[in-house]
């Protein structure tokens, strides 16, 4: 029942907002190139479905590539940090610098270095660079937060560092890692969109470019349709990662367990 309400309330709110939006556009006679009505946006979505859905697939594919690359790199580096304080001290500041540097400022450089012939690779790299830090910081924190007594037990029983990592530290870090993945997954999409904007015309073919293109042509209803698909893509990413979190933690971690 509670789960049904969790879905029903946001849907009701969306329906109310859309109805109000439709009514205001109709009553105020707002021109469609300023603010199209939801019905016009839906019509544009249906009309341009083949090109918009193809763009959505490109956006999903590039974001996924960036996210998975970031995930592998961040976990590897977090493991290195957990094994070597020296490595953490030496490398962590650079990870922070990567995070605080506005990606929109260095995206053009990356596009030039990787080359416009491999535009998807460049976009994935930028998306991955944005997703990297939250995954790294959460995974590193998780690995460091293992119960000291459990670590002492593994020492007492003569465990190797690898055994301690695999049997105790990594499962213990899983909740923090999944939190990092949820944040990283969503902002990887933001990174991909930023990169597409930076790439400009004639190269990118994802949803962000459809938005720019529709804006240039004053096809505002199509712009809104692309924007809606972009939001839907973000929701899909978040939902998929939340599902993964639930599947992995529901039996043992408070954050994913039902309360009675």
């Amino acid at each position, binding site marked *: 029942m509670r789960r049904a309400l969790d879905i029903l309330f946001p849907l009701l709110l969306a329906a109310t907002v859309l109805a109000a939006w439709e009514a205001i556009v109709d009553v105020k006679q707002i021109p469609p190139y300023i603010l199209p009505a939801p019905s016009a946006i839906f019509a544009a979505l249906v009309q341009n479905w083949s090109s918009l859905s193809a763009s959505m697939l490109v956006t999903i594919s590039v974001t996924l590539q960036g996210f998975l690359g970031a995930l592998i790199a961040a976990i590897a580096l977090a493991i290195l940090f957990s094994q070597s304080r020296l490595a953490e001290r030496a490398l962590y500041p650079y990870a922070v610098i990567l995070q605080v540097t506005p990606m929109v400022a260095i995206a053009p450089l990356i596009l030039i270095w990787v080359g416009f012939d491999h535009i998807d690779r460049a976009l994935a790299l930028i998306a991955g660079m944005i997703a990297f830090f939250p995954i790294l910081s959460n995974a590193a924190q998780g690995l460091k937060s293992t*119960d000291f*007594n*459990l670590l*002492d*037990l*593994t*020492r*007492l*029983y*003569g*465990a190797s560092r690898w*055994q301690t990592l695999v*049997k*105790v530290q990594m*499962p*213990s870090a*899983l909740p923090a890692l999944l939190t990092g993945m949820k944040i990283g997954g969503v902002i990887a999409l933001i990174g991909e969109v930023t990169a597409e904007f930076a790439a400009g015309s004639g190269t990118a073919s994802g949803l962000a470019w459809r938005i720019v293109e529709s804006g240039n042509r004053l096809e505002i209803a199509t712009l809104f349709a692309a924007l809606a698909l972009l939001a839907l893509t973000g929701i899909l990413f978040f939902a998929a990662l939340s599902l993964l979190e639930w599947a992995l933690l529901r*039996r*043992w*971690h408070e954050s994913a*367990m039902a309360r009675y």
Partner: protein
Amino acid sequence: MTSLMLNISRLAKRFPNGVEALAELSFSLNGGDFVSLLGPSGCGKSTALRIVAGLLAADSGAVNFPTGKPELGFVFQEPTLMPWADALTNVRLPLDLKHGTRGEANGRAESALARVGLKGFERALPRELSGGMKMRVSIARALCSFLGASKPRLLLLDEPFAALDEITRAALNDDLLRLWREDGLTILFVTHSVAESCYLSERVLVMTPRPGRLSADIALPKQSERPQGFHFSPQFLDCQRRVSEALGAA
């Protein structure tokens, strides 16, 4: 079983924050002993136990095992279980780390769980168990590290029942005594409860407030010589009086 198993001499430990936990702590343990280390909170009991286990280094002094290092088992104040793993996997941990075969490890873990009264709870996760049951899993894990070991076995317990209710605590005390008798374990039991130390052990080592050193070494009646209902006997009250007086004088 009465040979000297552990000899601690002039153990000292000061932590980086300046707290001096131990100063010249010395005592010894014979094989098969059940000894309680008793003292006020913060007197260095747990520090001493961790040094014996090799989990902490002493600043000075020595920990010697004259007949060779025994198999060590450690039970913490908290159950210290892996929350993502079921009871069987938790108990099996020492064997998994020693690269035993899965089948053999499972057999031993099941046997250890049965011995602490948890047969049928092999697949239960820690969150599905009560506080007392979690502590039983923790004890079973320590037993599991011993099972099949040919070396002498030293079980170190750091106030394991402090957070439990009185009824559960009494049941676990009796279980621990049974395991000690059946397995010929040597036990060093840290506690701040006078009654618990007198009920369980045959010798109580009383420590001074911080920095901890040995203040009294009190011999109590052998478990084998204790009458039925010892818990309610004048003899038990006398033991408690002697230990309390030593604690007061420490």
